[in-house]
C-alpha cells in the first residue's frame, strides 16, 4: 500500500499539521512533512479526527436486506466518517448464537468499508426469558463483548441481574434498551402535552427512567458495568449522574436526533419522526446536550435504524420506529454541540470515537492521531453547509428526519487502516 500525505489538517481542531500514512499505520505527524512518494490530500482548514465509532447501528442483515445490508450499512458508515460500527442483534434470525455473529463479522471484513463488531443478544430470540450463549459468542471469531436486546428491554430484573453478572467472566458489557414494557403498551410518542392533543398513545419518561434506576442499582449490587442505550430524558440524565457520583460503573449514550429534535415535530403525523425512544421535549434536549458536554453521557451513538419506504409512507400508528443516522450524525453533533460551544473537536473525538471504542473494546479504533497508531481517520470540512438530500445516501433506506434541513459539516475522507473508503465525499 502506498503512502498518503494529509497536508495541513487541523488534528482534533488544533493547529494545521501534516499526517503521513504508510500502509495501515500513521508514520509521522508534524509540519512540513515530505510528500515524496506519497499521494497528497490537501486538507487546509479541515478537521482531522480519529475514525468514528458507532456503538449502536442496525445493519438489518440477516433478514431485512430490503432495508439495509452489511454492505450498504458499512458504506453509509464510511460516508459518515465511521471506521467501526457495532451491529445490533435484532436481526432475523436474532444474533443470539456464535453462527450469526460470525457471519455478520465476516461480511464486514469482506466488504472492507468499516469494521463491523456484532452485538450479541442477551436473551434467546430477544424474548427476555432465557440467557443466550453469551460466552460462546464472546469466544467466537466475532469476539463479542457487547450484549443487548435492543429494541426490547431486558425487563425481568432477575435475567438482567444474571446477565450483568455473567459477562464479568470475560469482560463483557450489557447495553440496556431502557423501556418498561407495561408502561409503554400502545405507546406511539412521548407522553405529554403534544400526545394529549394528538391522541397518540404516550411513552412516558418514567418508563425509561425507572429501568435505568433499577439497572444502575443492580450493577452496583453485583459489581458489574452497565451501558444505557439512547438516553432520552432529563430524568435519565439525573439518574446516571447520581449513579456515576456513587461510583457505579455505568456508561450512557445519546443519539444525534435526541440532541436536536423534539416531539413538536410529531404534530405533522409524519412517521419519519417516529422513533424509539420517542422524541422528547425541548427541556430534555437541553439536558441531554448539557450531559454530553459534562461527560454524564459518555458517547453519541446513532441508533441508525433503516426502514423501507413503505414502512414510513403510511399513517403514524402503522409506521415502523427508527431513523437512519450514520450519514448525518457528525453534522448534527457539530450543529448541536460544537456550534453551540458545548464541545470542542477534541471532545467530539472523545464522544464519537475514543469513548465508544473503549466501551465496546474495539481494538485499533478511537486511538490518538499520532505516529505508530492505526490509520483510522476521518477528515471533516467543518465550514461546509448544505441541506440534507436523502437521495445521495449510501444507505439503502431514506428514513431521515433531516430531509431538506440545512446542517453544517461534511465528511470528505475516511481511512480504514490506511485504505481510503471515502475520498472527496465519494465512496471508493
Amino acid at each position, binding site marked *: 500500500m502506498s503512502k498518503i500525505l494529509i497536508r495541513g489538517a487541523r488534528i482534533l481542531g488544533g493547529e494545521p499539521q501534516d499526517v503521513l500514512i504508510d500502509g495501515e499505520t500513521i508514520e509521522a505527524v508534524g509540519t512540513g512533512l515530505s510528500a515524496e512518494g506519497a499521494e497528497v490530500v490537501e486538507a487546509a482548514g479541515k478537521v482531522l479526527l480519529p475514525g468514528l465509532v458507532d456503538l449502536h447501528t442496525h445493519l438489518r442483515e440477516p433478514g431485512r436486506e430490503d432495508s439495509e445490508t452489511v454492505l450498504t450499512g458499512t458504506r453509509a458508515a464510511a460516508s459518515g466518517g465511521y471506521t467501526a460500527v457495532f451491529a445490533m442483534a435484532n436481526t432475523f434470525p436474532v444474533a443470539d448464537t456464535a453462527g450469526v455473529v460470525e457471519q455478520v463479522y465476516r461480511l464486514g471484513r469482506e466488504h472492507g468499508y468499516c469494521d463491523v463488531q456484532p452485538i450479541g443478544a442477551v436473551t434467546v430470540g430477544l424474548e427476555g426469558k432465557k440467557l443466550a450463549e453469551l460466552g460462546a459468542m464472546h469466544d467466537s471469531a466475532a469476539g463479542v463483548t457487547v450484549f443487548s436486546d435492543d429494541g426490547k428491554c431486558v425487563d425481568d430484573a432477575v435475567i438482567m441481574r444474571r446477565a450483568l453478572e455473567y459477562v464479568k467472566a470475560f469482560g463483557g458489557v450489557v447495553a440496556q434498551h431502557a423501556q418498561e414494557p407495561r408502561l409503554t403498551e400502545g405507546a*406511539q410518542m412521548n*407522553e*405529554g*402535552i*403534544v*400526545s*394529549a*392533543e*394528538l*391522541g*397518540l398513545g*404516550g411513552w*412516558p419518561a418514567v418508563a425509561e427512567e425507572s429501568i435505568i434506576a433499577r439497572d444502575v442499582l443492580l450493577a452496583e449490587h453485583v459489581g458489574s458495568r452497565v451501558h444505557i442505550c439512547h438516553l432520552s430524558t432529563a430524568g435519565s440524565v439525573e439518574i446516571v449522574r447520581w449513579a456515576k457520583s456513587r461510583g457505579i460503573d455505568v456508561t450512557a449514550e445519546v443519539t444525534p436526533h435526541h440532541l436536536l429534535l423534539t416531539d413538536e415535530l410529531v404534530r*405533522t*403525523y*409524519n412517521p419519519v419522526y417516529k422513533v424509539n425512544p420517542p422524541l422528547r421535549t425541548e427541556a430534555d434536549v437541553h439536558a441531554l446536550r448539557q450531559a454530553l458536554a459534562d461527560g454524564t453521557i459518555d458517547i453519541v451513538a446513532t441508533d441508525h435504524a433503516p426502514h423501507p419506504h*413503505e*414502512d414510513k*409512507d*403510511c*399513517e*403514524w*400508528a*402503522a*409506521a415502523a420506529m427508527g431513523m437512519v443516522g450514520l450519514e448525518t450524525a457528525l453534522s448534527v453533533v457539530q450543529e448541536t454541540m460544537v456550534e453551540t460551544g458545548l464541545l470542542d473537536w477534541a471532545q467530539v473525538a472523545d464522544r464519537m470515537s475514543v469513548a465508544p471504542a473503549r466501551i465496546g473494546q474495539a481494538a485499533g479504533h478511537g486511538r490518538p492521531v499520532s505516529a505508530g497508531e492505526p490509520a483510522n481517520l476521518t477528515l471533516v470540512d467543518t465550514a461546509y453547509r448544505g441541506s440534507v438530500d436523502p437521495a445521495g445516501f449510501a444507505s439503502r433506506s431514506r428514513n431521515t428526519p433531516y430531509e431538506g434541513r440545512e446542517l453544517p459539516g461534511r465528511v470528505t475522507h475516511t481511512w480504514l487502516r490506511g485504505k481510503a473508503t471515502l475520498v472527496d465525499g465519494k465512496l471508493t
Partner: protein
Amino acid sequence: MQRHLISAADLSRDDAVLILDTAEEMARVADRPIKKLPTLRGRTIVNLFFEDSTRTRISFEAAEKRLSADVINFTAKGSSVSKGESLKDTAQTLEAMGVDAVVIRHGASGAPYRLATSGWIDAAVVNAGDGTHQHPTQALLDAFTMRRRLVGRDTGLGQDLSGKRVTIVGDVLHSRVARSNVDLLHTLGAEVTLVAPPTLVPVGVESWPCEVSYDLDAVLPKSDAVMMLRVQRERMNAAFFPTEREYSRRYGLDGDRMARMPEHAIVMHPGPMVRGMEITAEVADSDRCTVVEQVANGVSIRMAVLYLLLGGNEPAVSHARTTEEK
C-alpha cells in the same frame, strides 16, 4: 375554512359560526316534501370507513344524498386493510375513480391528516373520527345542538356560545369527541370543564383550554350543558377504574344528579349510550336529554360542511358574502 376538515382546532370562530348558520338553513330542508338540494350534483364523495360506525356513516351518507352528491361507500372491516400501505393504496384507487372528497373514519390518530397532507391524493378530506384524536363534525353538531337549546334557533344565528358552561364527563383520555369539543367550544367562547377519574384524563391536559375536575357533583349546578361520554366496560380490565358500580356512583348521571343541574341545562351524549354505566335510563329518556336531536342535527351539520367545502370552486374562506354585479 381550509380545503379539508381535519380538526376542530383548525376552525376560526367565524368559520364555526358560518357552519352553524349554514346548518340551520340545511335543517329546513328536512321539513320539505322533497328533502333534497341539487347543490353537489356531479360531485362524487367516498365514505372510507376503516372502523365500524354505522351511525356516522349513515349520517354522512344522508347529508351527501340530500345534496345530490354521488356516494360511494367503502367499509374496510377487519385487519387485512388496517396496514399503512392499504390506506394509501385504497385512497389512490378511489381517487383514480374520480372522487372529489373522501370522508374518512380511521382507527389511527392522524390518518386523515396524513391523507390530506402526504400528497397521496388531491381530493378534499373530511375527518369522520380518527383514533383518539378528533371528530370535528361531532363537535360541530354538539355546538349546534347547544346553540339551538341554550341561545335559540333564530336568535342564535350569527351567535357563538359565549359564556355557556359546558361539562364533559367520562373517558376523556380515549375520546376524540372530548378533544374536538374542547377545541371548538373554546373557540366559540364557552367555558369547558372536564370531569373524569384522574386515570381517564390524559397527561398533558393542563395545556388544554379548559378546567379539569374530579368532582361531578360540584360542577353540575354550574353547568348549562352536561355531555356524558361513553365509557367502555373493557377499560375496567386495564385498571382505569375498579368496577362499573363504582364508576357509575362517582361519575354516572342519574335522576338525583340531574336534579342538581339548573332548570334550563341539557344532557348530551354522542351515542351510543351505555345505560347503567355513565347514564341511567331515567336521564337518557328525559326531555332534557338531546341524544335524538343530536342525531338529526348531525345530518344538517354534515350537509353544511360538505356544502362549504365542495359547493364552490374553492372552499368558503370567510364569513363574508361573495358579491357580484348586475
